[in-house]
């Protein structure tokens, strides 16, 4: 019989090469450069790391240069797209990747309104952080290795963002996880750092399991893994609110909880602060951890069809926002406060996309990238200053513990001013960027509450989290910059502002944190929601399936007023409570007691996971499976059974050890001849 397959293959390939719209074609096709440039930087810096690690100037030039060039390309691509906004995504196929029966996956990138937003954030914020790193990492031995990893990260992040199909995006998805692992464990000689890297990778793998299962289900139900095709076919072939689409989206979301550090898989992110601070800014605040939000936005049609999953997304988001914020109240490590803050803010984004407010979720993703990157880089300047001071005085204090800081506004005035801006932004003080994006999410949640009361609860949790956010952020500012300095008499003289290559990027991010709200000004304030209009084609279908209900008029004003009030109250109380009593330096501080201790120990979740999951698995593997089953049952029985056999064969062994090789060859040849003879006779 003949196989009808080749014809089918061609047809499938044809379909994979979706025809690009002619208008934006030329420039948009260059989008592969945004990936290729950092990739080339990775290779070049990797080679330098192995061969000439001391060539730091070359490393800086390559490392930051490729990123700025990629940002340039991204700008050109976006401009071209802006001039001719396409109806459907422009797919740029690069090569045939996987071909197995009906599965034909082309390694293709997809440029649309959504992916360029991410493209700009990743390359733009990425460029700033690369520049900052030149100053921050200058004295590190692993300078070249650092930049090669960072370049590689950007390349993978862009594959994630641009991938036209789930498997291609998955290459980026796992690749950024790899880079995260490498950079968290960058100072790998400390076991804690290497552990943190491994933890990040493993926890993310649990999430990736979900993404894989979702892919399998999508393939067998829709016969495609291309995002565009999924969006097209899902409404036709999947039954809305049915078990299948719910399962698919829940498995996808499992992946998101891993990558974007949501309950129950958030525990890796605070530990990830073991990496260099610019890494925390780029990977663990601005870009990689938002990939889960992006994935939900990317597959918005599926989530719109699965109300149950959307409720789970929104609920987990709201819960995480609140839960992580409470832990943030009681941390002393400046980066850990910011880490829990990131977990919490990511929760807002999921509350947004889970509510169906995809634009609001993406909006908060963008503004958060600005102000959280700024906060991390600012904390980097603080740590940099303290580390230098301690280094100069040969002191071994913790340079990240806020109890050792205080009064830094006098020594780091620029950093103080900029971090204050960012704090205002994250706390939701108008008119800074975070105010607009957070408000939009909360309004949408409140609005949905009109139909489904559950969302009123989510909204209340969001407001409570907003209050806590303002509180712990003001606590951070107060402990770090206000009051009296606690760094030490001699150390104090060495405290100074970071070089311009570090403060420069901070200034740019500060500007963006202030004006970022302009991207999507609400109509109420006489603005025009530009981002909403821009992203409209991407989310149109989802919004038709599950329309948003936005509060208007008086309700909207009341909501905004309430949110501002919560923020103001949080800021005020955070400031008062922190400075009410004198703070003792970390070495002399009494341990927390009561609930504060529970918060400081992060509700003991790590300990619980360790006792319930990690240890039992290792115990099971070592004592039951290996020693018990493998060596005891299987081998024990085998060996006992075959012991006599082995004894019988023992004489052969004796020959083996004492004999000459000629003997073995002779035995072999005789055996072979005997075999032949036996057969031919």
């Amino acid at each position, binding site marked *: 019989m003949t196989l009808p397959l080749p014809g089918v293959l061609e*047809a499938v390939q044809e379909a994979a090469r979706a025809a690009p719209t002619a208008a934006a074609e030329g420039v948009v096709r260059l989008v592969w450069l945004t990936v290729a440039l950092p990739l080339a930087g990775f290779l070049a810096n990797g080679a330098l790391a192995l061969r000439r690690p001391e060539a730091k100037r070359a490393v800086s030039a390559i490392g930051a240069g490729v990123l700025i060039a990629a940002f340039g390309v991204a700008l050109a691509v976006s401009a071209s797209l802006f001039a001719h906004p396409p109806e459907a995504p422009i797919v740029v196929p690069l090569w045939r990747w996987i071909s*197995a*029966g*009906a599965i034909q996956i082309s390694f293709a990138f997809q440029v649309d309104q959504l992916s360029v937003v991410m493209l700009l954030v990743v390359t733009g914020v990425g460029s700033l952080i690369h520049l900052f790193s030149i100053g921050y990492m200058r004295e590190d031995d692993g300078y070249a290795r650092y930049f090669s990893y960072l370049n590689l990260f950007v390349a993978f992040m862009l594959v994630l963002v641009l991938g036209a199909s789930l498997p291609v995006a998955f290459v980026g998805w*796992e690749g950024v996880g790899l880079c995260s692992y490498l950079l968290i464990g960058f100072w790998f000689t*400390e076991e804690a750092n290497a552990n943190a890297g491994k933890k990040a990778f493993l926890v993310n793998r649990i999430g990736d399991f979900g993404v894989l299962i979702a892919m399998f289900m999508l393939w*067998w139900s829709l016969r495609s893994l291309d995002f565009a095709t999924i969006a097209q076919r899902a409404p036709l072939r999947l039954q809305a609110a049915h078990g299948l689409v719910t399962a698919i989206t829940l498995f996808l979301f499992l992946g998101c909880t891993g990558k974007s550090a949501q309950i129950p898989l958030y525990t890796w992110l605070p530990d990830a602060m073991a990496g260099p601070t610019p890494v925390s800014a780029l990977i663990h605040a601005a870009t990689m951890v938002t990939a889960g939000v992006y994935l939900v936005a990317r597959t918005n049609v599926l989530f719109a069809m699965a109300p149950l999953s959307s409720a789970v997304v929104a609920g987990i988001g709201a819960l995480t926002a609140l839960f992580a914020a409470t832990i943030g109240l009681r941390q002393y490590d400046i980066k850990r406060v910011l880490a829990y803050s990131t977990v919490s803010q990511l929760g807002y984004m999921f509350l947004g996309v889970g509510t169906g407010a995809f634009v609001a979720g993406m909006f908060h993703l963008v503004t958060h990238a600005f102000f959280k990157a700024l906060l991390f880089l600012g904390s980097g300047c603080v740590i940099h200053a303290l580390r230098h001071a301690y280094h100069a005085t040969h002191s071994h204090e913790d340079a990240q513990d806020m109890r050792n800081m205080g009064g830094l506004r006098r020594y780091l005035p620029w950093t103080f001013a900029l971090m204050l801006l960012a704090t205002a932004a994250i706390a939701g003080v108008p008119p800074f960027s975070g105010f607009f994006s957070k408000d939009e999410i909360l309004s949408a949640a409140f609005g949905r509450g009109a139909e489904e009361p559950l969302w009123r609860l989510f909204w209340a949790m969001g407001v409570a989290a907003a209050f806590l956010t303002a509180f712990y952020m003001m606590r951070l500012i107060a402990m770090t910059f206000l009051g009296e300095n606690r760094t030490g008499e001699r150390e104090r003289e060495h405290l100074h502002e970071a070089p311009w290559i570090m403060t420069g990027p901070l200034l740019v991010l500060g500007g963006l944190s202030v004006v970022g709200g302009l991207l999507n000004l609400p109509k109420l304030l006489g603005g025009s929601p530009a981002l909403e209009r821009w992203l409209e084609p991407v989310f149109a279908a989802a919004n038709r399936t599950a329309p948003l209900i936005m509060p208007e008029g008086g309700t909207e004003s009341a909501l905004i007023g309430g949110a501002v009030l919560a923020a103001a109250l949080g800021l005020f109380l955070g400031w008062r409570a922190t400075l009410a009593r004198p703070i003792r330096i970390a070495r002399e501080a009494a341990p927390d007691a009561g609930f504060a201790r529970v918060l400081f120990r992060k509700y003991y979740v790590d300990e619980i996971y360790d006792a319930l999951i990690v240890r039992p698995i290792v115990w099971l*593997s070592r004592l039951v499976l290996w020693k018990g089953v493998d060596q005891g049952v299987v081998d024990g029985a085998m060996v006992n059974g075959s012991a006599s056999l082995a004894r019988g064969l023992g004489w052969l062994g004796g020959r*083996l050890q004492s004999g000459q*090789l000629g003997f073995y060859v002779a035995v072999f040849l005789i055996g072979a001849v005997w075999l032949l003879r036996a057969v031919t006779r």
Partner: protein
Amino acid sequence: MTQLLAAIGYPQWILHVLLLLPLAGAVPILLGPVAAAKRTALVVTLLEFVLSVGLWWAVDTRPGTLQLTASVPWVPGWGINYAVGIDGISLAMVLLTTLLMPLSVLASWSYITERERGYYALLVVLTTGMLGVFLATDLFLFYVFWEVMLIPMYFIIGIWGGKNRLYAAIKFFVFTMVGSFLMLVAILALAWTVAGRTGEPLSFDYAHLLANARAAAGLAPWLFGAFALAFAIKVPVFPLHTWLPDAHVEAPTAGSVLLAGVLLKMGTYGFLRYAVPFFPGVAMSPWVTNLVIVLALVGIVYGALVAMVQPDIKKLVAYSSVSHLGFVMLGIWAATVQSLDGAVMVMIGHGLSTGALFFLVGMLYERRHSRDIAAYGGIARVVPVFSLIFSVVALSSIGLPGLNGFIGEFLVLIGSFRVHPVATGIATTGVIFAAAYLLWALQRIIYNRLDQRENETLSDLSPRELAVLLPLLAAIVWLGLFPAPVLERIEPAALRYIEAVRGPMGLFQVSQRAAESPR
């Protein structure tokens, strides 16, 4: 290229030359001076590799049937022929073997210092055995090659192995002999029964037996059982795997590489080529299917968990093989285009990455004479190139997309999902455990504090060692990014397998499923 090869008659002689060249090469190795043995072996295996590359173009894999077939009567009275042929699946296995051979010789360069002539002679004879297993199209010849391959490996472990080499060699020998003896009985019984029932003369010809295996229907469960046992030991399928960790630990580097890289694949190859297509009624019966799937899952999860707690690096890699080969078994029994393409890709990918892992462990062992994970730590600073390559290889074994390991695993899982969704879900947890054991090992070997003085003076990879690893590294990256040409060569043979297993209707359904897909 194809025409050029045809012009020099390549398709007519290549398979015979591939089988005979190593045998002939053993003569100068044995008779020449000791110092020349490894050079001769390198020349022979390199030549073998270069010659085999032409197969990529010379074999027309599109029909999915055996190509370049040739048959010469060997024992006419018994209907035994010297008969060889090649399809897409065996093409992949042959190229994997010929690639690993010169690298194994190079890796033995300074590792083997005793009885070099015998060692290298056995190594090249082993090549013939391995290639013969993949190329034979006469079942008796297949059996002969199966044994030919067993004996050199037995000696390589038993003579050049570690402290417990004797125990390991005998264990390996006994396990495999039990299997292969049963297989011989099954082959003879099958041939006799077919001859008796069809009235045709006795024949061991593959196509003939495949077409008439139904004639032995009454015996089918027994025959399948015998074949399956032989192959399952080789794979190895849980609980028949305990010879593997011992053999791996004791074998010299090249022995471990070839064991993992090639010999284990003979088990899965045997299932693909013989056991399942000959007796699809038995193999695909619910009872056997469930048993195999369960054992495959146990292998995947159990192998990974046990690997995680091994203190010995080689044992860790050995148990990881049990896990990886579980994916292959799942793919073979799911019998969809994707799962089969994936199974063969896992066979290739596992050969490359596990082969590379064993090479790397061997290089460490040559420096420190220890395989204990605890003997290392923090060596990334001392040997950065080694650590980099070790990391990439480990990542490919973990199944990081973009490297070769992912392609096979992904295809096996996505292909099996429709047929066995729950089993596939369990198998997919393997990706978590794989990351657990390899990253933990990686951390304890190359990361953490450098706390042992002996490790401070480790030397990084030499040019010779780079020459061993870089080809594998290139293949790992290349197959991860551009697997389509390989997949296309595998697929027609995979479709033949489906046809044999599920019957023409099954294939029709598969094609139908393909046809209803996107437009």
